[in-house]
């Protein structure tokens, strides 16, 4: 009798401990980035590109990387959106829920979701060789859009699946074609969820380094040209940390702080959207 009681208490204690470890690790990481990054932060970090000698400790900031990342992730998100939307519409509006083909596609997307980002980088690289594209914004966009395509599709699909079937049927009975019903009714219903999916994908795209390391190159300039190499925040952090100069390493922490703030910001924004729009959707 007592043995069971002891066993219960023991495991309860262990469980609470584990949960604390996990949540503490999050807190620890965020706090450390904040603590190390804040002192090194100044306005110049976000408003200026690297001046001469930036990597040797001189003036400048990471504007090149901020802009570059935004452009790259933005471009990739847009490209990926135009790939994901048709797929998700097709799966949910044109195919029956139980069709084998849709199961296969969903399975593929799930498996693609787990492919490491460096593999997307390598594949992107082979595509670039094939088409003669050099390391550039375009190269990065191709690789990252492939990376985030499964993430975006899956998230959008989950949202679309939740749209009640009756909504579609009502539209058909009113005379709409499948495409019209799909676009006007289902999409509107699922809009907040789709927006969330896009934002999540964007967040993933902006934070990834492995996929851009071959494909986007790096640059000290703020550039929007598709065919020139572009700087990205993750790589900027990586290169800054790799220098032997403590001032530059400190800047790596500040850049990490910037990147983390962007990600946290997106996360919070996503949650707000979901909550706000919950009232507009039909249950």
């Amino acid at each position, binding site marked *: 009798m007592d043995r*069971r*009681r002891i*066993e*219960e208490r023991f*495991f*309860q204690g*262990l*469980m*609470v401990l*584990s*949960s604390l*470890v*996990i*949540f503490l*690790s*999050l807190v*620890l990481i965020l706090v*450390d*980035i904040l603590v190390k990054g804040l002192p090194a932060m100044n306005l110049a970090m976000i408003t200026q590109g690297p001046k001469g000698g930036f990597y040797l400790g001189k003036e400048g900031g990471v504007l090149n990387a901020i802009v570059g990342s935004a452009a790259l992730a933005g471009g990739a998100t847009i490209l990926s959106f135009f*790939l994901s939307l*048709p*797929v998700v*519409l*097709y799966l949910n509006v*044109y195919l029956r829920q139980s069709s084998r*083909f849709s199961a296969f*596609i969903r*399975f*593929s*997307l*799930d*498996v*693609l979701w*787990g*492919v*490491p*980002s*460096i*593999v997307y980088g*390598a*594949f992107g690289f*082979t595509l670039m060789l094939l088409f003669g594209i050099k390391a550039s914004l375009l190269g990065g966009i191709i690789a990252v859009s*492939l990376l985030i*395509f499964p993430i975006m*599709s899956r998230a959008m699909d989950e949202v679309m699946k939740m749209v009640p079937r009756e909504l579609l049927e009502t539209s058909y009975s009113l005379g709409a074609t499948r495409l019209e019903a799909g676009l006007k009714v289902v999409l509107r219903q699922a809009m907040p969820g789709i927006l969330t999916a896009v934002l999540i994908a964007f967040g993933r795209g902006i*934070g*990834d*380094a*492995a996929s851009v*390391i*071959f494909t986007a190159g790096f640059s000290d300039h703020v550039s929007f040209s598709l065919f020139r190499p572009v700087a990205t925040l*993750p790589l900027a*952090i*990586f290169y800054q*940390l790799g220098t032997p100069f403590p001032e530059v390493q400190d800047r790596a*922490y500040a850049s*990490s702080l910037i*990147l983390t703030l962007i990600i946290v910001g*997106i*996360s919070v924004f996503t949650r707000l959207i979901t909550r706000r729009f919950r009232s507009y959707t039909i249950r």
Partner: protein
Amino acid sequence: MFLVTAFAGLLLFVMVLALYLKSRPILETKTLGQLFLATSWSPSRGNFGFLPFIVGTLWVTLAAVVIAVPLCLLTAVFLSEYSPRWLREFAQPPIDLLAGIPSVVYGVWGVIVVVPIIKDHLGPRFGSYTTGYSVLAGGVVLAIMIFPVIIHISLEVLAAVKFEVREVSLALGATRWQTVKHVVLRKALPGIFAAVVLGLSRAFGETMSVLMVTGNVARLPHSVFDPAYTLPALIANNYGEMLSIPLYDSALLLASLILLLVTLVFNAFSQVILARLSRRVA
């Protein structure tokens, strides 16, 4: 629309094919033994022994899984079986946030926090001299990175176990832990296994954070305090020299192919288990 969807279905095959075609040069020049059993890696001399990288990746991945699985399982059980609903919901955002933090940031944190601790405190405690850049460092950082995957899927799997079986067990006079141990976990085991495999797969392919904390020395590690060089790190570190040395690009793309195939197998395996489970519930 159909075309795009078909593209989605074919993408995997296209990727495998493309990487395979690019790997052909080295596959044709060297035997599999020379590639996968050799420990010497010096591309300029034409040696492409992948063994240190394969072993290194295995060590780091295993370390991560060993650290993460007990913690995640206990936490998932706690949230699912012992917590009120508000706590479970309250716990989701932090877990999602952990999942969103970029790999580089984990790497930076690993370098600032984990590496010094291993170098100054853990290594000496176990009688090992270490620079801190080690399998252990990679394991710790990776473990944290895969917490969200394992917990999230485990929670889903646990939630899928019907309430009535728990009730039955408790009605017979079992304690909550006995119910968890003998009934809930038993039912949820395949799903939890799938969750772990997915976590393993994620850890296997992780690049930046591992690259930054494991030391990148191409030797077989003999203890967790030794440095290691993983396959993803190999690819990421050397893309610059890729085109200047013959066969180097082919070798690195072969490494990518290996990564792709391994994660493909693991993921497909897990997804099949999870799909079968959800079908049973529905």
